[in-house]
C-alpha cells in the first residue's frame, strides 16, 4: 500500500515556543523579507503559531495553534492552478513545483488556511548567509508561490537511502524539521496508512479535530484539542 504522510498537532503539548517556525526556515531556505516588506504583510513562515485571545483581564486566556499546509486530500489549491505547479503526488502530498509556477496567486486565494506564500521580489541572502542554504531545497525566485512541503526533501532522502539498502522505509526514520525540533513533542509525523504508526493512532484520538474540516478539504493534519484539568481523576 502506498504511504500517506500525515501529522498530528497536540494543542495540549504545544507551548507556543516557535521552534518549529525557526526550524522550518532553516531547513527550507525560507527567505527573510525584512522590516519594510514584513510591514506590508509579506513575511513568509511556512508554519506559524496562531494566537487567539479569549476573554478579558483578569480572565484572559490564550490558545496557540500551529498552522502549516494541511496537505489536503481534496486541496482547493490544486484544481485552480493553470500550470499544475500545485498538484497532488502519489503519496498524497500537495506538491509545489516552483519552476512551473507563473505566479497567478490563484492557489493562494483558494487555500482556506492562507498557508501559501508568494515571492513578491527575488529573495536575498546577504553574503555569506548564502553558505547556509540547504542544497536539498531549491531557492525560489520572484513571482513564485511557495509553501510547506512536509519536508519532501527529507522524505526523498530517506526513501533513496532505504532503496540503496534494499529495505522498506522505517517508521520514524526521519522527521520534518518542525517535528524534529519541537521540544514538547507536540508534532507527530508519519504514515497514516500504517495503522500501527503513532500518527495513525493519535489521529483516531477522541480529542482529534480537523482545521476548517467543514470545508471538505480532507486535511491530513489532525489537531488534538487542549485537555481540561480533572481534579478528581488525579486525586
Amino acid at each position, binding site marked *: 500500500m502506498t504511504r500517506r504522510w500525515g501529522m498530528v498537532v497536540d494543542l495540549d503539548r504545544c507551548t507556543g515556543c*516557535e521552534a518549529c517556525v525557526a526550524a522550518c526556515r532553516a531547513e527550507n531556505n525560507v527567505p527573510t523579507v525584512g522590516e519594510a516588506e514584513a510591514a506590508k504583510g509579506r513575511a513568509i513562515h511556512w508554519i506559524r503559531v496562531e494566537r487567539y485571545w*479569549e476573554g478579558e483581564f483578569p480572565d484572559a486566556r490564550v490558545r496557540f495553534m500551529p498552522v502549516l499546509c494541511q496537505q489536503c486530500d481534496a486541496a482547493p489549491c490544486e484544481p485552480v492552478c493553470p500550470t499544475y505547479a500545485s498538484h497532488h503526488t502519489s503519496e498524497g502530498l500537495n506538491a509545489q513545483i516552483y519552476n512551473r509556477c507563473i505566479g497567478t496567486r490563484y492557489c493562494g486565494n483558494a487555500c482556506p488556511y492562507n498557508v501559501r506564500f508568494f515571492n513578491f521580489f527575488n529573495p536575498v541572502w546577504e553574503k555569506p548567509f548564502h553558505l547556509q542554504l540547504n542544497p536539498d531545497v531549491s531557492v525560489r525566485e520572484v513571482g513564485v508561490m511557495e509553501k510547506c512541503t512536509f519536508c519532501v526533501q527529507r522524505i526523498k532522502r530517506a526513501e533513496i537511502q532505504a532503496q540503496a539498502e534494499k529495505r522498506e522505509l522505517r517508521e520514524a526514520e526521519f522527521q520534518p*524539521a518542525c517535528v524534529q525540533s519541537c521540544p514538547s513533542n507536540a508534532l507527530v509525523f508519519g504514515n497514516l496508512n500504517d495503522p500501527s504508526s503513532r500518527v495513525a493512532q493519535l489521529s483516531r484520538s477522541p480529542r482529534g479535530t480537523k482545521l476548517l474540516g467543514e470545508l471538505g478539504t480532507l486535511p491530513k493534519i489532525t489537531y488534538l484539542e487542549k485537555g481540561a484539568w*480533572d481534579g478528581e481523576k488525579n486525586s
Partner: protein
Amino acid sequence: MKRREFIQIAGITGATAALAGCGHPEHQLIRFVPEEDLEPGTDEWKPSICPACRAGCGILARVMEGEAEVVRKNQLGLMNMGLVKKLEGNPLHPVSRGKLCPRGQAAIQITYHPDRITDPLRRTGPRGSGEFQRITWEEGLQELTAKIQELVRTGQESALAFFTRPLGVQAGRLVELFLASLGAPPAVAFEVFDEVVLRRANELSFGRAQLPTFDLGNTNYLISFGADFLGTWNSPVAHARAYGEMRQGRPGVRGKFVQVEPRMSQTGANADEWIPARPGTEGILALGLAQVILTEKLRPMRAASDAQNLLEGCARGLPEYTPEEVQKKTGVARATVERLAREMATHSPALAIIGGAPLAQTNGLFNALAVNALNILLGSIGQPGGIFFTPEPSTHARARKQKAISVRALAERITSGEGDSVKALLLYDANPVFGTPPGWRVRDAFERIPFMVSFGSFLDETSILADLVLPDHSYLESWVEHVPESGTTLAVESLAPPAMRPLHNTRSMPDVLLAVAHQLGGRVGAALEWESFDAMLRESLAALSKPGAGGSKEPPMSWEKAQKQGGWWSAPVNSPKFALRTARVPALRSQEPEWDGSPQQFPFHFLPYPSQSFLDGSLAHLPWLQELPDVLATAMWGTWVEINPQTAERLRIEQGDVVEVASPHGKLQAPALLSPGIAPDVLAMPVGQGHRNFTRYARGRGANPLEILTPLVEPETGALAWAATRVRIVRVGQGKLVLFGGDLGVSPRKRSNR
C-alpha cells in the same frame, strides 16, 4: 583585484584558478586545495553546543560540502569545504534530548553573519566611533602581550580586568589560571538576567548555589511564580519536553498548571489558571498558600518542621499570612488562595517554581525562600515530580561561583577614580553597556580605561569601545565545552570539536590566551603549559571519567567517544540526594517590595522581560529572529509597550500609537500594543531591541527598556532589581507596529476568537 596581481598570487600559492576576467568575481579568486575530502551531496552530523543561552543544549550540526570564500595565510580565495547547513538537538545529550528552541535553530546565523568581525582590528578613530583598521594576528598578539608585560613591569597586575559572559568550566578555569598567575583579580562574569538571587536562595535552602532542575514529567500539580520556564528561563528545551509529558505523557493523568504573574508570558499562556498577583508579592502569596496547608494540616507534620528549618514561623503556621492578609497584599481573592492550597496539597507530586521578575525585586531573596519553603512543605525536594540539582561532574570549582566583585562595583571603582582602578580590560562577549541601567555609568567607566581588548565576533555597544579586537571563532568553528547547571539529573560535561573550519581570519579566545601566556613565559607560561585548548579539554576529560566522578560508577569514557557523542555524562542517577540546609531566614524580613518613584507621579509598574527571540538582546543581530513573530504580540522587527486595553482606552492610546514611558531615571518611546494579558497598573516591554550598533539588523531598532531602569538592587546579593521600576506613560502620536498576526490596527479585544 587587478588581473596581474591575481596571476602572481595564483603562481605563488600554486592553487588551481578558475578562468579570470569573466564577469563573476569569484572566478577571479584563487581556488585553494580543499583541507578535507567530502562527498558532495552527502551529509555528516557533528556534535556541538548551543551558545545562545546558559542551558547549553547539545546540538548536532549537519555538515555538507559547499564552496566558500575563505582566508588562508591572509589570502582570500575559494575553497570547497564542509559547511554547517542545519542544527538539530543532539538526541544523546541529557539536556536537549534531540530538541531545540527557536534561538538554538537561529544560532547558525552567528557563524555566517555578514557583519562578523573577520580580522583583528586596531582602533583608528575616537572611542566608540567604530573606526578600525585591519591588522595581522602577529601585530594584534604583539600589542596585547606588550601591554600586559608593561603592567607586570610597573607592578600594576591588579589593574588588569577580565570581563566575560558566563564561561564554560574549562574555559573559565583557563581564564582564572591566566589571571591568577598574573596576579590580576578574577574575571567578572556578566549577564543581564543573572540568577544570583535564586542561587543564593538555593544555597541557603538546599546548600546548592545552583539553578534547580524540575521533574515536570511526573508532576501532577505545578504552580509557577513568574518563571517563563517554557520560553526563556533556565533550561527551556528540557522544561518543554517534560511539560509535554506532564500534560499528555501519562494515560489518564493530566497535570494542572497554575501561573502567577502580572503580565502573561508565553509560559503563562499555557496555564490552566493564570493569576495576576501584584508585582513583588509572589513570596507573600506562596506563604499564604503554605499558611492554609499548615492550618488545615494538609501535609504531615514532618514537612512543616522541615519548612520551619528554612523559614521561621512555619511551625507557628505562619499566622501573618492568613488568606485575608494575602488578599490585601497580593490582590488574589482569599477563596482562590484557599482553593489552590488545597488542590496542590492533595494532588502530589506538586511543585512550585519561581523565576524571573519575582526574583528581580528588592525582596527577591525573600520571594525565592518563600517558594522554597512551600516546596519543602509540599515534599517536592528530590522526589519524583519535584526539584533536583544537576550533579557537579568536575572536580574543578565552578566558574559561575559568585565573584567578589560585580559589574556595578567595578564601574564604581573606576568612575570614582579610586586607587588601583583598571588600566587594561579584556572583554569577552559581554555587553554591559547595553545591559546595565545608565545609573551604573558602565559606559562612562569603560571609556576611562586606557586600554581595552575585545575577543568578540561583533561590534556591540561595549566592544566598539575597544582599542584592539581579536575576533573569536564562532562556536561551530572552535572547540566548545560546557557544564549544564540544570536541565538534567545526570552529571554532564558537554564538549565538542569544531564542526567546520573557520570562515574568517579568527582565533578562538582560549587559544589566544594560551598564545599570550606562552609569549609572556615565566609564571604565566608555566601555569598554562597546554599547547592548545583542546589539549586542556582532553586532560580534564581524563580527570572527569575517572570512576566516581560526578557520583557515577562509569568506566572512563574515551576521548574519541566523548568527541563523537558530544561530551561525557554519567549513568542515570535515580535521585541525587542533597541535605536540607537549615538556614533560618526570618520570614518577615524585607517581605514587601520597594519601588523607586512615587505611585502618584509614576502610577505604573514597569516590567522588562527577556524577549522570546533575543533573550537579553544578545541575539538581536540575527535576522531570522528579528522576523520571528513574538508568539503573543505577533510583532516582528521591533519593540513595543504592552498595555491593558482598559488602561489604554482611559489614556486614549490605540494599538500602534507611539507612547512615551518615563521613569525617574529616563524615558523611551515605543509603539503601544494592547493586550488583555496584562494588569491595568503594569506596563511590560521586551528586552533585546534598541541597540546603538551591533550589526545592520539590530542597529537603531526600537528602544532598550534597560535604559530607564532604576538602579535598585536586592540588598543581600547586590543583584539588579530590574523589575522594581515605576513609570508613567503618555501618548505622543501615531506609530506603526509590524504584526504578523491578523489585521494591522485591530486590537486583540475586537479580534478575540472566530
